[in-house]
């Protein structure tokens, strides 16, 4: 099991499960089962993190990424 917060720059993964209080918002933003997500970069201070999902750019705090389980894509 890999958490979204554990991805490295450039890595891609698929969303497996969301366990967050804010899951509704996350789902609206495109984090749904099987959706492909790619880590673009970390903010200069290391947090938040920029991802690419559903062909756009979304930034999330690390904290919330710990509530999202993903499957790595090779």
């Amino acid at each position, binding site marked *: 099991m890999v958490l979204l917060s554990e991805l490295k720059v450039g890595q891609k993964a698929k969303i497996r499960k*969301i366990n967050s209080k804010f899951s*509704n918002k996350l789902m609206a933003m495109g984090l749904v089962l099987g959706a492909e997500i790619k880590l673009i*970069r970390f*903010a200069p201070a290391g*947090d938040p993190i920029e991802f690419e999902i559903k062909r756009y750019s*979304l930034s999330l*705090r690390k904290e919330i990424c710990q509530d999202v389980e993903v499957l790595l894509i090779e």
Partner: protein
Amino acid sequence: MSEDTIALIGNPNVGKTVVFNALTGSKGHVANWPGVTVEKKTGKMGNIQITDLPGVYSLTPTAIDDLIARNYILDEKPDLIVDILDATNLERNLYLGLLLKEIGVPIIFVLNMMDLADEKKICIDIEGVSQYLKAPVVPTSAIKNEGIDLLKKMIRDCLKDGLVKTDLIEYPAKLELQIEKVQSYIENEKEITKLNSRFYAIKLLENDAETEKRIMPNNNDENYSSLEKIRGPEFPIEFASARYSYISEIINKNMKKGKLSFDSSAFLDRFFLDKKIGIPIFIIIMWGMFEFTFRVATPFMTLIEVVLGKLGDAIIEGIGESLLSSFIVDGIINGFGSIVIFLPNIFLMFLVLSFLEDSGYLSRAAFVMDRLMYKLGLHGRSFVSMLLGFGCNVPAIMSTRAIESENDRIVTMMANQNMSCGARLPVYILIGGTVWGSAAGGIIFSLYAMGIIIAILVALTFRRILSKGERSPFILELGDYRAPTIKSTITHMWEKGREFVKKAGTIIFTVVIVMWILQVLPLNQADPSESYLYQIGAFFQPFFGPLHFGNIAVIGIIFGFLAKEVVVAAFGLMLGVDEESSELGPKIFENLGNNPVIAYSYLVFVLLYTPCVAVIAAIKRESGSWKWPIISVIYGLLLAYLMAFLVQLIGGVYF
């Protein structure tokens, strides 16, 4: 026949405002939504009433904006909804579209930003998308006014012919089964009709708290427990996933994307968000904004002063010195002057902020700053509110509504008043210039810096007090960079500055007139010290005795509570000299014991003491209770007194 109503909705930043203006001919009318300061914009297209809803991503409320949009659609039941989609970001934008279809109101989709889509080599089969959505789709480039006529025609046609409600998505069998069950539980509840029972059933299965409140307010009856039993924890994500897979199908079938040789947004982000230079760039941009604002504003302010001064002189010369001329010059012109003198500063600041916002940089600034802001008890988004505070705290307080958690909003509001607004600057300039001459710049800078440091400390303190509450998540879209257009930058500037003008037009003007009346009464004074204004100063002066503030300085503070813009005007009235007169500074300094330390402590007091009434009212509206404005007044006063005292203590006034 009652007139038709339509509502515009869409994700944030899709060009809703531009479309609204194009449809209504920019003749929108702004009011507030009941109970909150979120602005409600309505306008007319012929005899059709158009309402602009706040930009939202979904219909599950997380912030006030979402709730307003959703309740409007459910309660006001507009005849038609126009959902505006960003053609360059169709996939995510369609999610809201599908949710809206589920409600079952008639809907038209607008594919806006077609010009940008072309640039990005995105090719969309409009007809195909329309078939999938079972609704009309109109392509537009609102900023170029392209497609607007077609949209107008489509709106009229749809209102005339009516659109039939059609379900789009067939959810997986397991979910459909549950939807049917829930529909049977709720069919007798009020508000439920054949048309919307499916929507409410889905929302209940998605654990939507607002729907529960609405449909099943007493959650201990039989129906509720049956619902509890069939709800699965995985349902919400399965619904969302089903919607997105329908969207993927739409996209795969109807959208083609050519290869771009150069992605300018990604390129710019390599610099703006870079690990090493991202923060320095941010600091330079902020510094540039202040430089620009103050440099460009200064000549305007001088010009305004000169023109009004000359006007006053001309009037006195024309009709002679009398009560009337005094009323015109010291009351009306002075009141008017106290207002316009602030416009250059505030509007230039909002101009730059709107430019940054429209260009797409402001969301990057939140991204870059979030870590630090979070540590300080704030949120990446609070950062913009804090910046706005340098212009005027009223729009700053209003902007906190974009922050989701109540606690984060309160902390941001409480800290905000310490950001030195444009109205405090003239006091610094007047006294600073008199006392320190060319070194005044450093003194003024120290005041701004002190405001920021105190804002941080206040934020940390309130964060501690509110520690139990939850914090907002940081879920922020980083949209593409765009070249801002003059028109929309100006529109956005005006949206921010409007509140200030309203306040200026009413409060400030009234206060100056009232001060003038208090100064001329009672009539036939043998000595200015007989005036009521003077008496008020004398009455309050003992409270400030320990701080060595004279009665004129005290009057400034008292009326500054109503509007900080009038502090300098109050000095002028009390001393019977023009605001522009070079005598004013030295006389105030005299009133502060000709002591630089006391003068500095006075400026510190002006910086920190209670926010003005307009800000207090804004805090009341935005926080929904009197508790927070009262706290902000009390802590402001105590803090100002304490800090002024400390300055004098350290400065050796007491020894």
